């Protein structure tokens, strides 16, 4: 198994969905950062990051969220994290305080519903 990161990017009703597959560490974080930047450049400020197939994340991955979330929220946008499945990914969201601060949506529909709620 190659320890890399694959990004699957799509949209639902103007919401950007970035599904992460594989390993998100200091080596692969720049890929993730670029993907979010592209969405913002394209004018999408509501972003869902689906972690269902994410197997590993380190603080370099958290740093990408941290770098964008404040800026997005200031302009009415947000990042919602959903689908966390791998125990070690959940562990990092918990031990870092991310889960408490941002919350984790169960799955993609739940995350999309949060945006609908917000933008009503």
């Amino acid at each position, binding site marked *: 198994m190659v320890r890399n990161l694959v990004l699957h990017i799509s949209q639902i009703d103007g919401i950007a969905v970035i599904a992460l597959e594989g390993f998100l*560490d200091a080596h692969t974080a720049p890929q993730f950062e670029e993907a979010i930047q592209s969405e913002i450049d394209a004018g999408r400020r509501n972003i869902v990051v689906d972690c269902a197939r994410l197997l590993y994340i380190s603080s370099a991955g958290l740093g990408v969220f941290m770098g964008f979330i404040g800026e997005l929220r200031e302009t009415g946008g947000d990042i919602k994290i959903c689908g966390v499945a791998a125990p070690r990914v959940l562990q990092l969201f918990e031990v870092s305080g991310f889960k408490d601060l941002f919350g984790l949506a169960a799955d993609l529909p739940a995350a999309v519903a949060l945006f609908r709620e917000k933008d009503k």
Partner: protein
Amino acid sequence: MNDFGRCFELRVRSSTENLALIRDFVGNVARQGGLSESDLSLVELAVDEAGANVMEHAYGGDPTREVVVRVRLDADAITIEMLDTGRGFDPAAVEQKDLQKLVAEGARGGLGMRLMKRAMDEVQYRSVPGGRNELRMVKKLGKPPGPETTEEDRKSGGKGV
């Protein structure tokens, strides 16, 4: 870490590409030591954070330098040393900001050392001027994550991070 009882050593260049290799190496040794899956992922996380810091900060992103990782298995603990010959630093001088503040500032980092300390029971850093820098981390076997400053830190000569 002098006798070769249950020591393992890995030398790789300082490319972030090698973080996965470092994690797998340490993970394999930890498995031999009988760590639980949960402790094992904490140890892999700590060594990844440590490696990323060496690559980014000590070597300033130069991927051609050398990172040495030593692991020692004892009956009651796993000890990891990470050595570099780059820029040293003073952990005590690094301002610890809480997560909320980091997010407000849009900081891209600032969590690594905290995570290492939460993941491991002991974290010590030593910079030998003009020489090499050593990060030493200990995880006791079959114990929950330790507090941020441990008994050992206060007693030992090494500097708690």
